[in-house]
C-alpha cells in the first residue's frame, strides 16, 4: 500500500451501498440498510485480495458493486485508473471484458438450457469477434485448461457435478483473458475433497496467466491458503487490511482476533484459547454510532461509541497493516 508509482489494477474508494425501502403510505420511512458504508481498498495486478467477514457484513455487496451488478450509492471504483461507476451501460459492458465474476452457486449461475460449450463460448461470441472455428478452438483450450474434458462441451449443466460446474463458471470467466476475476464464495458450495481441486485450479491459473482475484469468502482456512492480502469487514465497514501472514500471525483488530480464534483447529491435542463473541451483530439498518464493533468489543471504551476510528496504517515488521481501532 505504499505510494504506488503505477496505478493499482483496482482501486475502490469510499464505496457506499445503502438500500432504501419505499416510503410506506402511512408512517415514517424505514431507515436505509447500510450494507456497505465507506469501504476503500486496492487490488494489485496478479494478486489475490480476500474479503472476509460474517454473513451480512457486506462482502458480497462490495464484490458485486465492483462489477456493477449492484449500483453503488456513492464512492468510486477505478479499474486501471478508469472510473467505472460513471460509465454508460454500453461502456460498462465493454469494460467487463477485463472484469469477470465467478458466482457462489454453481447450480444457479449457469443457464440450464445451454450446452456447456455454448456457455463458455458466449463471452467470445459477444466480444471477441472470432470466427466459428477460432471460437471452437478457444473453447476446447479453456475446457482443457480448467480440467474438463473437451468432449463434454455438448453436455448440459445438469450433467455435471458441482465441482465441474464451478470449473465451467471459471472457464466462462476466463474466456476473454480478464485482468481481474471477482470470486464470490467460489468453493463454499463444494464438498471438501472437491474444494481442494478448485482452489488449486484458481491458484494455478493465477500463476500462469497473472490474473488478480478479489476473493470473497467466509472460510478463513481457504483464505489463508489462497490470498496475498486479506481485508476483514464487519457490518459494512473495513476493520483491518493486512498481508496474509501478518494478519494471521498478528491480528490487531479485536474483531479479527476473535474471528480467527473461532476457527476450529483440526487437531484434538490443541485446545484453542477461544474468545467467544456474545450475542448477534446489530442490524445494518441501525448500526451503532462510533466504531461499529463497539457493542460486542471486549476493549470498548466510551470513545468507541462516539468516534469512528479511521482505517490507518500501523508500523509492522513484514508488511503493511491497516487497522480501524482506537486502541490497537
Amino acid at each position: 500500500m505504499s505510494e504506488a508509482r503505477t496505478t493499482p489494477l483496482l482501486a475502490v474508494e469510499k464505496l457506499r451501498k445503502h438500500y432504501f425501502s419505499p416510503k410506506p403510505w402511512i408512517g415514517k420511512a424505514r431507515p436505509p440498510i447500510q450494507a456497505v458504508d465507506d469501504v476503500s481498498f486496492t487490488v494489485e495486478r496478479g494478486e489475490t485480495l480476500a474479503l472476509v467477514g460474517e454473513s451480512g457484513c457486506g462482502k458480497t455487496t462490495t464484490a458485486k458493486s465492483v462489477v456493477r451488478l449492484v449500483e453503488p450509492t456513492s464512492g468510486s471504483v477505478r479499474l486501471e485508473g478508469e472510473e467505472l461507476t460513471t460509465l454508460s451501460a454500453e461502456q460498462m459492458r465493454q469494460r467487463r471484458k477485463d472484469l469477470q465474476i465467478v458466482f457462489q452457486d454453481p447450480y444457479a449461475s449457469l443457464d440450464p438450457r445451454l450446452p456447456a460449450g455454448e456457455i463458455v463460448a458466449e463471452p467470445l461470441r459477444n466480444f471477441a469477434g472470432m470466427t466459428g472455428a477460432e471460437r471452437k478452438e478457444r473453447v476446447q483450450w479453456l475446457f482443457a485448461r480448467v480440467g474438463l474434458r473437451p468432449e463434454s462441451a455438448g453436455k448440459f449443466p445438469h450433467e455435471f457435478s458441482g465441482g465441474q460446474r464451478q470449473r465451467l463458471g471459471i472457464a466462462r470467466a476466463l474466456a476473454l483473458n480478464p485482468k481481474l476475476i471477482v470470486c464470490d464464495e467460489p468453493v463454499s458450495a463444494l464438498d471438501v475433497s472437491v474444494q481442494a481441486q478448485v482452489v488449486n485450479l484458481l491458484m494455478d491459473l493465477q500463476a500462469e496467466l497473472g490474473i488478480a482475484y478479489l476473493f470473497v469468502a467466509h472460510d478463513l482456512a481457504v483464505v489463508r491458503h489462497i490470498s496475498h492480502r486479506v481485508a476483514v469487514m464487519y457490518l459494512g465497514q473495513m476493520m483491518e487490511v493486512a498481508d496474509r501472514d501478518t494478519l494471521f500471525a498478528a491480528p490487531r483488530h479485536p474483531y479479527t482476533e476473535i474471528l480467527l480464534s473461532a476457527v476450529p483447529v483440526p487437531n484434538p491435542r490443541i485446545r484453542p484459547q477461544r474468545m467467544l463473541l456474545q450475542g448477534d451483530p446489530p442490524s445494518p439498518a441501525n448500526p451503532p454510532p462510533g466504531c461499529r464493533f463497539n457493542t460486542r468489543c471486549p476493549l470498548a471504551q466510551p470513545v468507541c461509541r462516539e468516534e469512528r476510528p479511521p482505517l490507518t496504517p500501523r508500523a509492522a515488521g513484514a508488511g503493511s497493516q491497516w487497522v480501524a481501532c482506537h486502541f490497537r
Partner: protein
Amino acid sequence: MSEATTPPAEAARAGGAAANPPLLEVEGLRTTFDTLVGPVRSVDGLSFTVDDGETLGIVGESGCGKSVTALSILRLVPVPPGRHAGAVRYRGNDLLGLSEKQMRRIRGDRISMIFQEPMTSLNPVLSVGRQIAECVQLHQRLGRAAAMQRVVEMLKLVQIPEAERRAAEYPHQLSGGMRQRVMIALALSCKPELLIADEPTTALDVTIQAQILDLIKRLQRELGMGVIMITHDLGVVAESCDRVVVMYAGKKVEEATVLELFDRPRHPYTRALMASMPALSTRAARLTEIPGLVPAPHQLGRGCAFAPRCTYAEARCRVEQPAFRVDALGHGVACFVAEEGRIPEPLVEAAAT
C-alpha cells in the same frame, strides 16, 4: 465389530458396565431407497455404539449417508421409498421394531435431533415458545403454565437474551444463530438421553459456530447425554468428539478415538480428507487433491467404493469389499492395503505444528 452380535471389545470399553446395554447400539443398519434406477443403498451395513455422556462424530462428505443414518435412527425416513434392515437398539430395545405410536414417545423425548437448516425445520406460523411448549406438554404432560415456565428456562439455558419476549416471537424474527439456539432448546427441552446433531453449525458463521459448539458441550456435561455429531468439518470433530466414525459411500471405513484418528489415520480416504482440507496452520503451497468425485450410490461397483479415487488401490480393491477390522488399540479400518500395513506411515500431515 460388525461380525459379532455382542462384541467383546465393546463390553470392555464400557468399563465393566457390561450388564447394561449401551445407550445406542446400531448394528448392521442398512437403509435402502427404491428408486427408478433400482434400489439404492444409502447406508450399507453400518454399526456403532454411543455411550452415555459420550460424543460420537460421524464424518463424511455429502452423499455418504451420514444424514440418512441420523434419520434412520429416529425412523424419520419415509417408508415406502425407504426400507430398513439391521438393528437400532436404544438401551437394548430395537427401535426399528417399534410401532409408530411407541416411536413417537421416544422421538423428541429420549432421543432428539438438531437439523442443519434452522429456518426450514422450525414451524414458521408458530411462535418459538409455542413450539417448545408443545414438545414438553406432549412428552412430560406439563400444564400450560408449567410448560411456558420450562420454555423460558430452556431459552435462558441456550443464552437467548430476553427469553420471555423472544418466546413470543416467530422464527423469521430471529437471526440464524438465534434460530439454531431455539432448535437446540427445542431438542433439549425434554432432557433427552441422546442428541443427534446433524451439521448443527454448517449454515452458521464461525463466531456463531463457536458459540453453538460451546453450548452443546456445556449442556452435555450438565445433562450427561450422549451426542452424535454429524459433520464434514474435521475441525469440529477434533474439538467436540470423543470417538469418530468416518463414512464413505454408505459404509464405515474407519473408526477410532479422536486422538488416535488424528495421530494415526489409517484409511486412505481419511488421510486424503485430512490433507485436502486447508487449516490455518497449513503451510503447503498446494492442497492435496482427491481426484474424481464422490460416487453416486447407484453407481457403486463390486469392490471398495473408494478404490477409483485411491492412490493405493490394487486390483483386489476393485473386485472385493474389504471387511471392517479392529486392531488391538480399538482402531478399526476397512481397507486391504492399510490392514497389511503397506501405506507409508509418514504421509500423516506434518502440519501438526
